């Protein structure tokens, strides 16, 4: 009976079971962790939030492992498996890195310039908006209403926020 052998293996290699290509998996999981960990973990600390160097480091280490794993899969086949899985995992990891960079660096430039906003020394534009009780509040009324201690109001802070909280 003859068996069909894969064309790129020699007869002597047929009986060798490929080792698990740990490097590929390690590289992939490191990249995934690098991608997912920014928001839950590294955003909380200013030193790792503004430039997510830990995440980039994790990506770099992950990609090194993926490179090692790919080399083993192709140069040392059939000792190591991963000829199909390797490129898939590597592509996903690179895609994760690209997407990560895109969100990090585009988020920073995401805010409008607000060049026409009132500057120091200019008059604050008036408004008439309803408060939580449905009553209309104007800037003029805020500035003329005495504060809680019955002293004339010294001023008011207008806090604009995104909403949808």
């Amino acid at each position, binding site marked *: 009976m003859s068996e069909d052998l894969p064309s790129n293996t020699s007869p002597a290699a047929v009986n060798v079971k490929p080792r698990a290509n740990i490097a590929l998996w390690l590289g992939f999981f490191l990249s995934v962790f690098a991608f997912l960990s920014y928001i839950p973990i590294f*955003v909380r600390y200013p030193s790792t*939030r*503004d430039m997510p160097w830990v995440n980039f480091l994790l990506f770099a280490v992950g990609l090194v492992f993926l490179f090692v794993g790919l080399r083993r899969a192709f140069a040392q086949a059939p000792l190591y498996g991963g000829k199909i899985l390797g490129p898939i995992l590597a592509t996903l990891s690179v895609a994760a890195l690209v997407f990560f960079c895109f969100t990090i660096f585009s*988020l*920073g430039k*995401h*805010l*409008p310039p*607000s*060049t*026409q*906003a*009132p*500057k*120091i*020394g*200019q*008059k*604050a*534009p*008036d*408004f008439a*908006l*309803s*408060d*939580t*009780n*449905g009553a209309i*509040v104007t*800037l*003029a009324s*805020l*500035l003329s209403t005495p504060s809680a201690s019955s002293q*004339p*109001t*010294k*001023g*008011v*802070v*207008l*806090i*604009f*926020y*995104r*909403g*949808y*909280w």
Partner: protein
Amino acid sequence: MAISVDSPTESTDLCRKAGYTYPFLSDPNAEVIRRYDVLHKGAGINGHDIARPAEFLVDSAGIVRWINLTGDLRVRARPDEMLKAASALSH
């Protein structure tokens, strides 16, 4: 004085949950937000227009005395900076 596109009902809920004591105003069509040029087009959920974070300190004559336009969503005004600006108003 907090201004956003949230409706009065949404702001009441927020106040109650977070314990804010200062007034919240609703600017549902972002009219005042536009007047102060703090509009952030399409940045809200479902692409709604919302405000970018910004604070303005206005004195009793209606003049702007301090502003904070954060260049980064992740960085907000520190309370002590704002308090320092506010205490300068009495001079």
